[in-house]
Each structure stands twice: as C-alpha cells, then as structure tokens.
C-alpha cells in the first residue's frame, strides 16, 4: 500500500483544517478567485477570499469546477 493513502483517506474523511466557504459562496466567488490567481498569485487570491482554498481542498466537485474555470480562462488569455 502506498504510504500516502492512509493520510489522504484521513484527510478526506476529516476535511480541511481551516475555515471554509459553503458551496454556494464558492460558486459566487469562484470567477473573482480564479482571476486573482491568474493575474496576481494564489497567495493574493487566498488573502482576498478567505475560506476558498480550504473549501476547494474539502469539496471535490467545487475543486473540479475551479480547475476547469482556471484552465479555460488561462487558455483564453494566452
């Protein structure tokens, strides 16, 4: 067994350590967060929208939405 598997499983069961947004707030703020990530950096995006990073770590569906939007916007800006 991969030694990382138990830790990942524990992390998935217990969720992120920090405070997190709800799925509704995540969707509302996702566009701004992605633009901040691309135009500044992840640290600025995290500072501007507290709880987004933790939610993306805890919610696989919202994380996929984030990755898709980020990829699409990045593709359009290159």
């Amino acid at each position, binding site marked *: 067994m991969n030694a990382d598997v138990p830790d990942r499983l524990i992390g998935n069961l217990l969720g992120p350590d920090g405070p*997190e947004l709800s*799925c509704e707030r995540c969707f509302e703020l996702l566009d701004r967060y992605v633009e901040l990530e691309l135009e500044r950096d992840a640290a600025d995006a995290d500072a*501007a929208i507290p709880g987004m990073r933790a939610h993306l770590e805890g*919610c696989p569906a919202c994380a996929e939405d984030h990755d898709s939007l980020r990829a*699409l*916007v990045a593709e359009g800006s290159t």
Partner: protein
Amino acid sequence: MGARANLLEEPCTAAASVVGTEARPRLTMVRPRPEAPPHGPDDESRAWVASLRDQGAGGDGARRELHDLLLRAARHEIRRRRDSLPHLRGGDLDDLAHQSADDALVAILAKLGDYRGDSRFTTWAYKFALLEAAVKLRKRAWQNREVPIESERWDRFADGADSPARGAESRETLAAIAAAMRAELSPHQRGVLVAVVLDGVPIDVLAARMETTRGALYKTIHDARRKLRASLAEQGLGFDPEPDSTEVAR
C-alpha cells in the same frame, strides 16, 4: 444497512443545484468576509450587461454571441472529461454541450442582476456553462448505476488496521474515525459521508437522487467532519475539533 436512493428527476439547471433557491442552507461555514473588490465592471463587461438587457434586436445578437461563448466553454469541459464517458459518441457529446450552453444562458439571464463586476463578465458567465456541463457529465457517467447511500461494509477502510504498511499513528486514527462514524454520526450524515468520500459518488449525482442540493449535502459532510474531529480531539489524537468554522447567519 444497504439503503439505496431512488433515481429522481434532476433540477432544471445545475446552477440551481448549487445556488438554487429551494433548499439553500441559511448558514455559511466561514467567519471572515472577502475583501471588497477593487473596482466595478470594466467597459466591456458593462457593455455585455447592457446589451443582454436590451429586449430588441441588439439584445438578440448579444444573447447569440454569449451562447457561442458558453458553447465553447461547455465543449472545453467535455474535452477535459471525455475519458470518463467512453461510451458516448461525438454527436451525444455535442448535444450535451448545446444543452449545457442553453441551460447556462437561461441561468445567466435570470441572474444578470447578481453580476457585480468582481471579475470580467465572460469569466463570470463561463462558470455557469462549466458547471452545467460538469454536472451533466457526472450524471451521465452514473446513469443506470446504483448509488450506494450506505453500503453494508462502509467501515472496510479500517480493515487494514493491522497492516504493517500503515504507520501506527494512521492505524490508530483510522480505527478511531471508524468508531466515531459508528457512534457519533446520524445515519444520514454517515450515509452521505460514506457515499461521497469513501465510495466516490459525485456530490451532484447524490444530490439529484436525494432531491437536494450540492450545498446542502456538503453542509452535511461538513457537520459530520466536525463531529469526527471533536471525537478524535477528545481522545487526544491531535485534531482541531473546531477549525474556526463557527457558523454564522448569512
């Protein structure tokens, strides 16, 4: 227990399943407020909103142009996820892209008043199309598949507790989590956590079959995780029982 969800009709749009009005929780899970955006809409975004509000021929053109952008976004999402749907043909996928763009356009026009210019209008609009496509693809991937709400052997993840491949700390933690899931969680909380986290059921698929929203189910998962963390903290296993997640009314 082996309880299983029935196959139910999906909400009219994916956006409704995330930010919908019918079952929207009244709580958020984070105390800090986002900082105020630095500026309102840029000129191009203002023009988009003004054109889309035009009920005349100019508005029709703007809506067609927006639909083209949404279709591009939906196709982008389908390309990203195509491996999860090997049985779907190109025509099926393009139908799905068009359905996603149609539904996204409806959602955007209904929520146009919510756009505040915190991002470019096109970025704001893209997320609706991506969400519609992603939810439809996840549901297609799980179509005709039974969704286990609480499998009889949900606690199998702790079966390898004696495995030498697992560190002593992980063994102890996993065993404690399994015990806490059994003792502390309600059947509903346990069922949702097991389905989404252990069985890998997409939360949108589960929400549709349980006639609820992604947000409501995630709130259930969040509450379950807090209970598990509290139980582990009581046992001195070193997890923060309340990761500053005090709920506040919106």
